[in-house]
């Protein structure tokens, strides 16, 4: 395997408290050293990273690859190519594939496809209940053995809290992380936008904050009851963040992530009836956005994820409420995270920690850091390079992003996964 020297880059590695210019050495697919001078190292490949940032490869806690089952929206190959170009070296795949990730066979099928794609590491998330139906427990132990890194019911609801309690207890007995998407379906009531001024003006079915905050409160109580390791996926409201902050203070093993677009867009930004703005949870208010940014800065929210959901054209072609929700967002992840730094919402090391160190800790994996002997997963990016979101730059099979046509700042120049350059600009 190639020996790689990444020279003179600005290394930011929150796990190892690195924030300085230096070299990173890679050999045998592993990190040999970061920020030291190895005089006897002969590189097969030297990457000059002057003026660029060198950091651990990003770990995305939620990216739909649409494979297996919806290859007309995207494939493991197309979406991991997009991920690689975005500096992402590990993606967690939610279980709502078709078939659902609730058997060993499906988990192995994904591992097999991932190996052939030969791109970022894919961590399947197993179903928490059989077929995500919310009534019977999945074979969590078998799923864990087959390689599932956590369990979740994706966006499928629980109608019976007792089942959720049992599922959390059972997951906890196998030391599995439960990822929970907070939503009370009776309250969100098939809505498509936030219950606020926008919904009122355009007469669109609306989702109140309470549909999320009640679910958060409920699940925190169950985490206390069951002792389960709990992660909240894609929160969108200020009051959810407050509840999570209290739970953390109380000492519960709770973490949370936010989708990158929730930190930038609000209901005021929605272009009327433009289905590219249709996403769940919906874009909330300015106050919520501000609070989510503060929560990221103070550590209440640990992780930024892409919540990548590529779609085919037909899925977004229709009257707004009838279109499918979701944004293709892997490739805008880094520039939008850098925009938070430009807005002085967070520091650059905080942003990188939210994409590397923190997701690795939540998942309990030896990754997300440039520690010696860790898999050499590295992202090199130019924080000032501008690029335009268009068909020439875009890799994902889904072009469904409200940022289409915009010029964004910050672009990945190299992505290295397990010591292999899987993307270079």
């Amino acid at each position: 395997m190639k020996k790689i020297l990444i020279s003179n880059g600005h290394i930011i590695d929150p796990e190892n408290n690195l924030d300085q210019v230096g070299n990173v050495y890679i050999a045998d697919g592993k990190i040999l050293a970061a920020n030291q001078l190895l005089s006897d190292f002969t590189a097969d490949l030297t990457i000059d990273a002057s003026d660029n940032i060198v950091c651990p490869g990003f770990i995305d806690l939620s990216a739909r690859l649409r494979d297996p089952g919806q290859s007309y929206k995207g494939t493991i190959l197309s979406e991991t190519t997009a991920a690689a170009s975005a500096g992402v070296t590990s993606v967690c795949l939610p279980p709502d594939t078709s078939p659902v990730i609730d058997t060993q066979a499906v988990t192995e099928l994904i591992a097999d496809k991932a190996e052939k794609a030969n791109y970022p590491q894919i961590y399947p998330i197993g179903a928490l209940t059989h077929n995500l139906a919310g009534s019977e427990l999945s074979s969590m132990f078998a799923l864990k053995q087959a390689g599932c890194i956590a369990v979740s019911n994706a966006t499928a609801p629980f109608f019976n809290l007792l089942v959720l309690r049992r599922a959390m207890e059972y997951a906890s007995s196998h030391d599995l992380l439960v990822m929970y998407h907070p939503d009370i379906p009776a309250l969100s009531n098939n809505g498509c936008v936030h219950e606020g001024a926008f919904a009122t003006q355009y007469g669109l079915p609306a989702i109140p904050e309470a549909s999320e905050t009640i679910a958060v409160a409920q699940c925190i109580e169950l985490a206390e009851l069951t002792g389960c390791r709990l992660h909240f996926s894609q929160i969108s409201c200020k009051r959810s963040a407050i509840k999570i902050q209290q739970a953390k203070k109380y000492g519960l093993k709770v973490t949370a992530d936010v989708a990158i677009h929730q930190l930038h867009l609000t209901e005021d930004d929605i272009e009327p009836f433009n289905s590219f703005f249709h996403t769940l949870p919906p874009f909330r208010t300015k106050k919520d956005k501000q609070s989510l940014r503060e929560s990221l800065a103070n550590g209440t929210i640990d992780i930024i994820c892409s919540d990548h959901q590529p779609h085919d054209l037909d899925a977004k072609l229709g009257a707004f409420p009838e279109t499918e929700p979701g944004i293709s967002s892997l490739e805008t992840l880094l520039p939008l995270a850098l925009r938070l730094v430009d807005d002085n919402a967070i520091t650059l090391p905080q942003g990188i920690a939210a994409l590397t160190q923190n997701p690795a800790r939540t998942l309990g994996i030896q990754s997300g850091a440039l520690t010696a002997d860790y898999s050499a997963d590295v992202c090199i990016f130019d924080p000032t390079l501008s690029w335009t979101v268009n068909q020439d730059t875009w890799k994902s099979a889904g072009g469904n992003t409200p940022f289409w046509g915009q010029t964004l700042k910050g672009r990945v120049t190299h992505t290295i996964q397990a010591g292999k350059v899987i993307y270079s600009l």
Partner: protein
Amino acid sequence: MKNLQLNTEGKLKHFLSIEGLSKEVLTEILDTAESFSSMSEQKVKKVPLLRGKTIVILFFENSTRTRTTFELAATRLSADVLTMNIATSATSKGESLLDTIRNLEAMHVDMFVVRHAISGSGHFIAQNAAPHISVINAGDGQHAHPTQAMLDMFTIRQYKHSFDNLKVAIIGDILHSRVARSQIQALNTLGTQEVRVIAPKTLLPSHVETLGVTAFNCIEEGLKDVDVIIMLRLQKERMTSALLPNEREYFKCFGLTEERLKLAKSNAIVMHPGPINRGVEIESSIADGPQSVILQQVSNGIAVRMAIMSLTLQSNGETL
């Protein structure tokens, strides 16, 4: 939104919703309707303005009043009219909205008048239809019903002449009402002094005040000194979805009675987009009484729809 409805010269190309339209555009519609309104009393109720044009009236939801006034308006403008009730047509065979539109386009039509149960359908069709086609929204979900709002504005102007000093109260199911949304926007654009909405909280959208209205949960307070009372129809399904207990209780709290009518100005007019639920939202004696202008609204509907059809087709391509 604005760009979609107006052509490059700022003239009305589609008529999808009131938002984004200026007072001047709305006034032009009302003035044009004025010139058509005397026509219905003439012997020959027809002008050749849209001769040779084909208008397709596409209703994905049932309606009698709106559909027939659109048909009459188009006929009186000498257009060829095709009415399609899609609820019983192609889409039930799995044809998509877009395919239905494409097929009709291939038949070289000039205008779609569309009613659909989903908010935003009118915009979707306007965005995807061929450039020579005008789209008129005849009601989309809970979003907008702009031709109804304009005929109501026409009726108000007929009786009250100007909007400046008016207090207008809209009573009923604001939450689910596309009519109310369009009325509120039109009233505010035309400079109405005060727009009030009166309903229990279950029938008011959250943040209703952002629409530029004052909200009342008590009809007695809300009716005080108003010049115009607009009643909305109460749909029966509101009772089954736990928004209201029953019709009798609704009438007790929010029904327009002779007694309550006295709280408004003595020359207040009473409006209703129809069809009326007698004894549920309004007492029969008021619906048929001297202050009611409900049937006048229906007659005005034809003139206003003629105005909107001719203005949108006029702005679209060759002079007529």
